[in-house]
């Protein structure tokens, strides 16, 4: 389960969305939020973080390196196989959900989202991570 001190990495190429997610996380009580503008920068921030990142919330479609690229890179590193990873995206077609699940996503929030839908998925992913 996450707590207000949990370290969260938000990855989105749109500054507006990074602001919106950051604002929503603040409303939910999370204060330690790092942001990155694509999957490659997200990996740099993730790998360099100390203490380690507790939760990644990432967009799917981004230039340079996508959210799925980032997820695969994180899952490909033995140290981070269980790091909670939530995709926040406007893509919700069945084939895409299957792709995300196959890559090891922990949760999925479809845009448009609000604070409540983000809270629900964070709580669900947190509970599942604790139970694992």
């Amino acid at each position, binding site marked *: 389960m996450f707590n207000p001190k949990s370290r969260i990495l938000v990855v989105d190429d*749109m*500054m*507006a*969305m990074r*602001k*919106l997610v950051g*604002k929503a996380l603040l409303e939910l009580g999370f204060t330690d939020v790092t942001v990155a503008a694509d999957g490659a920068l997200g990996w740099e921030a993730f790998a360099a973080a100390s203490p380690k990142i507790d939760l990644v919330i990432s967009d799917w*479609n981004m*230039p340079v390196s996508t959210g799925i690229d980032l997820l695969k890179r994180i899952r490909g590193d033995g140290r981070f196989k269980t790091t909670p990873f939530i995709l926040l*995206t*406007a*893509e*919700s*077609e069945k084939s895409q959900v299957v792709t995300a699940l196959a890559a090891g996503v922990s949760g999925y929030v*479809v*845009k*448009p*989202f*609000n604070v409540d839908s983000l809270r629900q998925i964070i709580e669900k992913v947190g509970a599942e991570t604790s139970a694992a």
Partner: protein
Amino acid sequence: MTLAKISTGRKTPMQPISVIEDGKTLLIKLPAELDGEFIEQMITESKAWLLRPVALLVFDFKDVQELKLAAYRPFVILSRLAKQGDKHIKSIGLSHRLELQIKSDGVLGSFNPFSPADLAKERAGVTAKPTSTAIDVALINPFVEATVSTLQIQCQTPSTPGRPTLLKVEDKEYNPSIGILGIISLSTAKFHGSIALAFPEKVYLKIYENMFGEKHDSISSDLQDAAAEILNIIYGTAKTQLNQTPGFDLQPAIPMVLAGEKLKIHQKTREKIIVLPFESAAGPFQMEIALDSK
């Protein structure tokens, strides 16, 4: 035609959910009050409805006067499950007020309002030949619904769609006031074109304020990518719905944003432009969809 009543579900003293199957359709007549007990009962009973060998589930709202937000839940759930099982949900008898309500709350797609005449045609197996007009309608509705829900949920700005207008390129002499414009290219096997979302400056600044709680006097470069994100969400939401329909295969696309004075939309189309006006709590804005058949 023999009608077989398969369930009268509801316990006394509540009015029962009447479910009638006629071979092609399951007609579910809703009681006047859709309260918490009804919602739970509907969620439970709807599992059995989805197992019936029918392609169409029709909800009759004739007696329903009020639709609280909590009552959306079973319809949204059922609509998703129905799609997975290749079944369709339609609603008849919705009052104009309730139809406007579900439109503005962004859940129109879960109810699919239908006129009794259209329902009779569908039950009789009358299907329209696909025409460019059918493509227009099939294309427009998901974009309208996606726009309303995105503005409502992501921007805290309720909006309602106005009447769409079809313009020929040579007729396009109107000059709407535009402060910021987002554009995405559309391309499928059947058509290509583009979709543009245009806001007057004051309207966009108010929407931005609703989203972030920040007041600004002009659209600086820092404010522009919110317009791209709004269009991105609208496109992604509509694309998900459209790609469930054969013939549409919209691909992910990246929006482009322009801001400044004296902006005009020049859609590269040989055929037609659909203008969708919206009225919102922040003021009017519009979407334009330009289409060329391949």
